[in-house]
């Protein structure tokens, strides 16, 4: 009897905690957005500047996700399957983007590629615009979403071991063949899971991009920067509409994670 009361009490506290912190705030924004029907929200989403912002976010994501996927797989294989000095340092180093403030990342890139930065002069001489343009925004996004694929791939590679790979090699398969027909298929769910996390992080990046983009409306404004711009211009409906669009993607990500996680853990 006492343990049942305790269990219900604990459950209520946890559900209340999640309601207060997560569900409540998101719910109220959903409600406010569609309070006056679907029309106003749609109008706010389809202004030229907002469409441009979403396009820019998609372009950046479309570049950053494949780059980080290739890096994550190669890095995971190097850390788990190869022996080399300094492995511990590398292993710790790839986690740095997770622990570092996005603003610090943005500032570091700003100081590297800016007019007075190390590369600034050279880039300027050759007429290459990195800061306040797409390249720096892509680099910033790659930085903040760097570890996700590697972090998913590493434990899975450790778990599956290398017996099958060695068997394939003994049977005469080349390294490349072994990778494509043995290694990659057995880590595919981990890779997909990592790709989903990376995509979510890329779509949602704000702090680092806010620093390096210069926030030029209609030029270097991503969807998340647009949310703030709308809010600062007292266009709450606009800010809410873009937020809901981004939140819908986030919820799709959660659904995908829930579907994929059991498959990943099965390996």
């Amino acid at each position, binding site marked *: 009897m006492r343990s049942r009361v305790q269990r219900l009490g*604990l459950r209520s506290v946890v559900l209340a905690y999640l309601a207060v912190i997560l569900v409540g705030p998101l719910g109220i*924004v959903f409600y406010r957005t569609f309070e006056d029907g679907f029309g106003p929200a749609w109008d706010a989403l389809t202004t030229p500047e907002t469409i441009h912002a979403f396009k820019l976010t998609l372009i950046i994501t479309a570049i950053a996700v494949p780059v980080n996927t290739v890096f994550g797989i190669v890095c995971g294989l190097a850390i788990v399957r190869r022996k080399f000095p300094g492995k511990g340092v590398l292993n710790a*180093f790839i986690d740095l983007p*997770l622990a570092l403030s996005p603003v610090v990342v943005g*500032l*570091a890139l700003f100081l590297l590629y800016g007019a007075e930065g190390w590369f600034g002069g050279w880039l300027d001489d050759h007429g290459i615009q990195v800061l306040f343009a797409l390249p720096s925004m892509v680099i910033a996004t790659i*930085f903040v979403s760097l570890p996700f694929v590697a972090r998913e791939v590493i434990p899975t590679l450790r778990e599956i071991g290398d017996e099958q790979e060695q068997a394939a090699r003994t049977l*005469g398969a080349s390294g490349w063949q072994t990778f494509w027909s043995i290694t990659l298929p057995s880590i595919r769910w981990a890779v997909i899971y990592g790709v989903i996390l990376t995509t979510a992080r890329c779509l*949602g990046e704000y702090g680092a991009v806010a*620093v390096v983009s210069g926030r030029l409306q209609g030029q270097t404004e991503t969807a998340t920067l647009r949310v703030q711009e709308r809010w600062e211009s007292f266009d709450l409906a606009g800010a809410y509409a873009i937020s809901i669009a981004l939140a819908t993607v986030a919820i799709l990500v959660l659904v995908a994670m829930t579907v994929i996680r059991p498959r990943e853990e099965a390996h």
Partner: protein
Amino acid sequence: MSSTAVVEPRRVRASGDRAATALSLGFVTLFLMVMVALPIAALVWEAKSDGAQSFWDAVTSPQALAALKLTLGAAAIVALLNAVLGTMTAWVLVRDDFRGKAAVNAIIDLPFALPTIVAGLTLLALYGPASPVGINVAYTRTAIVLAMMFVTLPFVVRTVQPVLRELDTELEEAAHSLGASQTTTFRRVVFPNLLPGILSGVALAFAKAVGEFGALVIITGNIPYKSEVSSVYIFGRIESGDSAAAAAAAVVLLAISFATLLSIGVLRHFATRHDRA
């Protein structure tokens, strides 16, 4: 078996393996150098370019120091709250059973998936001036803690959950049958097993809270000395063209990130040593 037929390809393969190792390591190292190490080097360079004295002056300027104290204080509170509430949440998700548990489990990751600027906006919608429940914490320190709690919510839950799932309930049943109360069983049997998971989750949450920017920028109003955290202070310095002060404050955050990662590494080391024993 002819020995040459076996030895020959193996020798070829060994050199091929070495080439593959060199190639993949070269790629990974070069990528990390250009993408991560070089920008950080530029940041540290900028911070120390005017000498140690001016670095120190920038770090200890009243506004920077107030922001840093506020950031660390709020992050410490948030880390502590996460330790308790995160462990409770993990416990309910593993040991309890109720309808809709799968949905609750999925929703835990929402802060990972939701853009932080959207998180800030949603918190302001419910706990701001237009609050439908009559709670207005906008532009206060409570708002900072609230926003940090939102973005750090999954960390402890997701580090404790797998440990709890693996934990054998037989140990607890044995403790019970030997007359230990529920609290004693938790304290003496369950908690020591969960501790490494809780601590590494707390460390990650602390690092995330210290660096958080997007969720805070809207809801805290960024009033210097009152609700301005370090990341927002740095952003303000960049906007006003004072990159030396921005870099100095950023190096402090960088050092905190390194220290956090180091302590997680040490924790992992001890946790795995415990497994081997």
